[in-house]
């Protein structure tokens, strides 16, 4: 088990290196010149040239990359070329709200998806099943931003039930909790459908397995048959999907944060890209990719927990 974990952790290293390389190269292919952005609209050619030297942009590309890696290794993510704030500091203040939003989104959508998928599989072909499928298709088809806008318009604006702009405090305060509800419904809403569908398929598969028949032949109550012997075994494929979907959720967080003015990494990324703030944009890419890698690592480790046969292998 420990070996498995270490192996996975080591595999994450080259992935991270790839992410850094691609993130770096992406910034190079963007037609905007950071020195021009930094210098402002009325700068002379000499000033732009000086800034270019100052930022190290006159050096060869490979050297720039290694210098960049060197600075990263020291925890230096650079400074915003728009307002001179260190990127690390900006990321530090936005990562908390993003994590809050993710947790608030997942904490209701995963259980709901598991529940809907399980009852759909159990009463396969029934009205319940068809309702579950309808809900999940709707969930998959509605774009995040659209759901967000509708919620803002109806719940926030028309009914004035809940706030819809910005974060109003930590999750454990009443204000903070109220403010996270609409963004969390928006972001989690796109999650329910895929989880429900995958759960339904996986549970349906397991319900036909021999060991479920054994469980019934032992006289176990249906509740235990379904939870302990069907859903529990179905968790391996479902967890895989949840891991993949959380990657998309990071993308959804960018949209949701923008729509709800949520002060998170996603909104920071959008702002940085729109204003050609290269170091800031690179920083947000690193954080979001790191999140993705961590989620995948967690999923890998969860396999071992969920399936004893993986542990042995």
């Amino acid at each position, binding site marked *: 088990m420990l070996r498995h974990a270490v192996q996975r952790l080591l595999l994450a290293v080259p992935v991270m290196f790839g992410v850094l390389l691609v993130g770096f190269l992406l910034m190079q292919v963007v037609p905007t010149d950071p020195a021009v952005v930094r210098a402002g609209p009325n700068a002379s050619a000499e000033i732009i040239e000086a800034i270019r030297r100052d930022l190290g942009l006159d050096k060869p590309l490979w050297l720039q990359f290694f210098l960049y890696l060197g600075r990263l290794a020291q925890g230096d993510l650079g400074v915003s070329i728009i307002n001179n704030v260190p990127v690390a500091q900006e990321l530090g203040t936005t990562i908390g709200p993003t994590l809050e939003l993710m947790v608030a989104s997942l904490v209701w959508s995963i259980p709901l998806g598991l529940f809907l998928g399980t009852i759909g599989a159990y009463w396969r072909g029934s009205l319940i099943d068809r309702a579950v499928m309808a809900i999940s298709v709707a969930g998959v088809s509605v774009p995040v931003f659209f759901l967000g806008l509708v919620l803002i318009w109806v719940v926030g604006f028309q009914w004035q039930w809940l706030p819809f702009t910005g974060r109003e405090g930590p999750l454990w305060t009443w204000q903070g909790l109220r403010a996270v509800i609409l963004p969390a419904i928006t972001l989690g809403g796109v999650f329910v459908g895929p989880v429900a569908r995958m759960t339904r398929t996986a549970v349906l598969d397991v319900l*036909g*397995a*021999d*060991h479920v*028949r*054994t*469980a*019934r*032949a*032992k*006289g*176990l*109550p249906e509740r*235990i048959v379904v939870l*302990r*012997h069907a859903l*529990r*075994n179905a968790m391996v494929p479902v967890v895989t999907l949840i891991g993949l979907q959380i990657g998309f959720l990071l993308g959804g967080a960018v949209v949701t944060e923008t729509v709800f003015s949520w002060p998170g990494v996603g909104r920071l990324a959008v702002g940085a890209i729109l204003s050609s703030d290269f170091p800031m944009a690179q920083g947000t890419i690193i954080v979001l990719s790191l999140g993705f890698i961590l989620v995948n690592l967690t999923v890998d480790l969860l396999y071992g927990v*969920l*399936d*004893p*046969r993986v542990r*042995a292998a």
Partner: protein
Amino acid sequence: MTPLLEIQGLRTVFRSANGDIAAVDGVDLTVPRGRTLGIVGESGCGKSMLSLSVMRLVPPPGRVAAGRVLLEGRDLLTLSTAEMRAVRGGQVAMIFQEPMTSLNPVHPIGLQITEAMRAHDPRASAAELRDRAIAALERVRIPAPARRYDEFPHQLSGGMRQRVMIAMALACKPKLLIADEPTTALDVTVQAQILDLLRDLQQETGMSIILITHDLGVVAEMADEVAVMYAGRVAERASARDLFGSPQHPYTLGLLGSVPRLDEDRERLLAIEGAVPPPFALPQGCRFHPRCPFAIEACTKAQPPLEAIEPGHLAACIRAPVESAVELTP
């Protein structure tokens, strides 16, 4: 004394586009107390569906359409879901062909045994259940049972897994054990061990066994009574001695003829021509007549009833006793 289990006119059907298809079609059987009833037949003859019908575990779209299953006089088919759950594992337990897939791969075997116990004895403490589960593993001759308790199915061999299945089935001291091809998936040496174990456990507990198999050797070794099934019906029923000594149904004869024997010098084994007809394409009259060497015109007309040839020996064949048929056929 009433027999432990009496099956009367059991009919299990599957719904299809062309109406109901009967996998089990009017079966009467009796399981005496403390004895073993062997049910033999080729694949697709309805023997597994028969056993699942007794447990009321026929997978949809199948269902039991008619008949009675009397366990000590109580019709299992009329019980409520909760009552039936108490019967399953409590009074009637079942083990299956594939010990590989019949255990849940993600739970330790200890849990899988104790959960069966807990279902029928909710007040027992966790420590007590653990002790009882380890004792159950010991009873099926699993070495180092306390260590095995926490192991997962994939850590055990096929024979061990089937032992665990047996331990699980017998955890609540059932009166009847239904063993559906319990040794088919195992090596020959392991087969013999498992059969020995079942016989020993039967002697210890006095339970009855329904042994479902296509293997006549297993039946000869284990069963007191034998029922031969063909295409969803009982073709012949007798004590094991009578059935093997003087088989009366041509199908039984055919089955026996296809068993290799060491004490006879035969060039070739006799095989029954053709295959079991599927339940949706049954022939008119006797269901065996297209494959039967003794078939006459009358066999194509009506289904023969299961009738006593001798006391305690029943066969569903109008040509029975076969001695006369053999003389008539050149």
